[in-house]
């Protein structure tokens, strides 16, 4: 057990002025991330926060950790390199729906497929904010934006579905304003070994204000959000009177006490179930027929890329026949030249390319 580092949230704030719009959902998310990091008891210098481009991607500048604000869509790829280069680091990826569902879609699915041990927070506000209000890959069909003045004619990605389709081992969902729940979810994500994907329903106060209001409004929270906990029954409602059951393989909302349904009949959440079907149905639940599934929907174990890489290097190195460059250069087919007329060798960097030594 390592010593308690006793960080507080302040230890993770940078001196830079935070420049998100007043009322932006990003503030709450950042607070939750900072609190989570402070509680993790991981040395501060081991954190690295990597982002792409978009409003949320300014995130690293507001953190006091190592940070890399990169290019549009590529945070997942850059972070994959960071973690593979040094698996000892605690690497977080901050991205948005445009950054990782559109331009970075390819890196997103391959990150998940490889199961690299990164914590990804996907800020989903269903709009391009930094470019001032164009529809994104998570914008609902028919939605009117500046680039869809007559409504979009595209269906949207459901991020969790994409994660499961890519073989994801961890997917969770949260609402930006529910800081306490965010912290719980981030802590679970941080604990999970492998790619942890957290979709945060985030409000863009300027270009898409209220987009998640129907779900997020605390007044309706109990009715419209199902807070999943591993090993607990899937119960929701003002009076905890509703729940989910499985009927012919499909999820169904029932009321406890009606039609002979008792609490014992309610489905118990198993986040570790490898079979996709219930997790997929939970992810796809929409209002008004269902509540929106929140919390850790899926958390299963699978081989982790960065650990496998380290393991492979150790295994192969243990049996190696060459130990260094001098041996490698002389391995395989070589021959000696030592004729009476052959000259003494002159190093390349003295003869052909006499570079100046620093």
């Amino acid at each position, binding site marked *: 057990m390592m010593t308690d580092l006793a960080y507080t949230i302040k230890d993770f704030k940078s001196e830079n002025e935070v420049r998100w719009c007043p009322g932006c959902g990003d503030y709450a998310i950042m607070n939750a991330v900072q609190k989570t990091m402070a509680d993790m008891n991981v040395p501060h210098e081991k954190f690295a926060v990597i982002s792409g481009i978009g409003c949320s991607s300014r995130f690293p500048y507001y953190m006091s950790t190592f940070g890399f604000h990169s290019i549009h869509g590529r945070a997942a790829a*850059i972070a994959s*390199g960071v973690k593979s280069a040094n698996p000892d680091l605690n690497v977080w990826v901050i991205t948005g729906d445009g950054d990782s569902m559109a331009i970075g879609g390819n890196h997103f699915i391959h990150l998940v497929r490889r199961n690299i041990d990164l914590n990804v927070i996907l800020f989903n506000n269903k709009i391009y904010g930094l470019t001032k209000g164009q529809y994104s890959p998570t914008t609902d069909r028919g939605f009117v934006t500046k680039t869809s003045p007559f409504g979009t004619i595209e269906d949207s990605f459901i991020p969790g579905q994409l994660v499961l389709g890519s073989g994801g081992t961890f997917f969770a969902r949260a609402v930006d304003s529910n800081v306490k729940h965010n912290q719980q979810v981030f802590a679970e994500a941080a604990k999970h070994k492998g790619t942890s994907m957290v979709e945060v329903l985030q409000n863009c106060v300027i270009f898409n204000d209220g987009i998640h209001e129907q779900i997020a409004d605390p007044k309706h929270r109990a009715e419209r959000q199902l807070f999943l906990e591993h090993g607990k029954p899937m119960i929701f409602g003002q009076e905890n009177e509703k729940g989910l059951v499985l009927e012919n393989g499909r999820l169904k909302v029932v009321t406890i006490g009606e039609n002979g349904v008792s609490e014992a009949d309610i489905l118990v959440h198993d986040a570790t179930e490898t079979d996709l079907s219930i997790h997929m149905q939970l992810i796809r639940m929409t209002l008004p027929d269902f509540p929106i599934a929140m919390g850790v929907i899926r958390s299963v174990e699978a081989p982790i890329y960065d650990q496998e890489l380290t393991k492979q290097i150790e295994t192969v190195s243990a049996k190696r026949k060459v130990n260094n460059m001098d041996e490698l250069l002389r391995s395989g087919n070589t021959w000696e030249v030592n004729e009476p007329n052959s000259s003494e060798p002159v190093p390349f960097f003295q003869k052909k390319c006499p*570079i100046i030594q620093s």
Partner: protein
Amino acid sequence: MKDTKVIELEEVAIRFSGDSGDGMQLTGTLFSDATALFGNDISTFPDYPSEIRAPQGTVGGVSGFQVQFGHKEINTPGDDAHVLIAMNPAAVKANARFIRPGGTIIYDVDSFNQKNLDKAKFTTTDPFAELKLEDFVKIPVPITSLTRESLKDFGMDNKSILRSKNMFALGLICWMFGRPMDYIENFISTKFAKKPMVVESNLKVLHAGYNYGMNMQHMTPRYWVDAAAIEKGTYRNINGNQATAWGFLAAAEKAGLELFLGSYPITPATDVLTTLAARRDLGVKTFQAEDEIAGICTALGAAFAGNLAVTNTSGPGLALKSEAIGLAVMAELPLVVVNVQRGGPSTGLPTKTEQSDLLQALYGRNGESPVVVLAASTPSDCFYYAYLACKIALERMVPVILLTDGFLGNGSEPWRIPAMAELPEIKPRIAKDSSKFKAYRRDVETLAREWAFPGMDGFQHRIGGLEKNQEGTVSHDPENHQVNCEIREAKVQKVVEMLPELEVFGETDGGDVLVVSWGGTYGHTVSAVREMRKEGKNVSLAHFNFIKPLPANTREVFSKFKTIVVCELNLGQFAAYLRDQVPGFEYRQVNKLKGLPFTVSELKENVEKLLED
């Protein structure tokens, strides 16, 4: 300058070899005739067993046919073959000693079963290792099964089907060496005119072999660069891609860093990845990414995390990597990008060589985005320029693009193996004092910033693609941006202090004609200049390995010659760059864009024409 001789395809020897019943003599003859009609001079050497039917599959039963061909007068069939086509294990055994070191062996992998290994008296399951052929290029081709597959609808018996195997091999070789097949087709149609089934089946298999080669993009080194082995030492054959990969490995060892390669397979650069992927034993981290962009982005992430980070690609891949190179410029991280150039634009000629990515390497990014650009000139010196690229990147905190090309990457030559002790030190600019650390604080001399990476306590900082001030804080200040753009350019220019001056081969004090070349054309330009000098002509050579920055004495060298002629495998990119960077001279041009290296004779012809003017 290095004593190098280029042997062009004008002298390639191919040896067909199989069971005496495999039709190798016919195959060899047909290929030779097609080659002769194609305009090459040829010399052939049939080598078959005295028994017409020695026991099948045994070494004694192997029949061979060697052909050497070229543009020049060919007087011999070649001592050793560059390429061996082996239809079974016995053929490999019988011919192992006739293959040039580092040559290519194309073999029917279907016939490499236990039965045939036993017949050929191999004692292990790896005949190549047993014959010490590890360093040869081996291309396994399922000749038997593909022949069978292509004839499955012909209703032929097994024996007749197998008799067509040689046509598959012939078609494949025709693809590899760019031979037109009409002569062979005519021959078959005429010879078997009365047996339409035989004609049809043979042509079917012939084309199947040709198409297989095309689909698999099989190619062999078509050019050979021989360095006269005049220095004492231990030698090996090495191709340019392997040398590049090993140069990176050597740099990592010298710098005391882990090596990370982010990469996406692309012809002809993939062998850099495969060579390094094999080196998990030395701790190399190769990351085969989902695309070219992720290839460089993972590398950039690894550079941020403190590894020696490299990425390899070819032209179209470099285009995809542009944005991330820009980020490396802005973030001022050490990163090496090697571009094994091929024919462009677009997909272009993937298996052919060209030098047409020069301007892309120099300028192909948004904004003022200077990087160091180096170019290797022979297969083996790819090792040293890869090493130097890493040294510059790590010591000057700057991205470096190393240009090689398909000719260097696939070409091989004998190489005196250096000792690691011969290589210069590499001192990465890893930050030491956290109290003084600022993300963009620079060395006053070199303008290089310091490198601090996650895990280093007290050095926490943020970098990224936005313009920054010295502290690393985002800055939109107009003055700051101008200053930083100038600094990033000046930092690249200051690398010239590390580099040697431009050498002149020939009239070092000046003369009539100065041939200027760069990168992979060296073997041909130096051979051409040497031959012209032997003929008494006043011709010299200045060959460039350093493109940006240019060697400090470039102008001084140019000013000593009456005529400067820039020879390159593009439409004049280096000439254009020189006009901009070293103005005041008339740059004549010799350009070639055929996906092929220069030939010595065409270079001579062009330069001599200039001499006459």
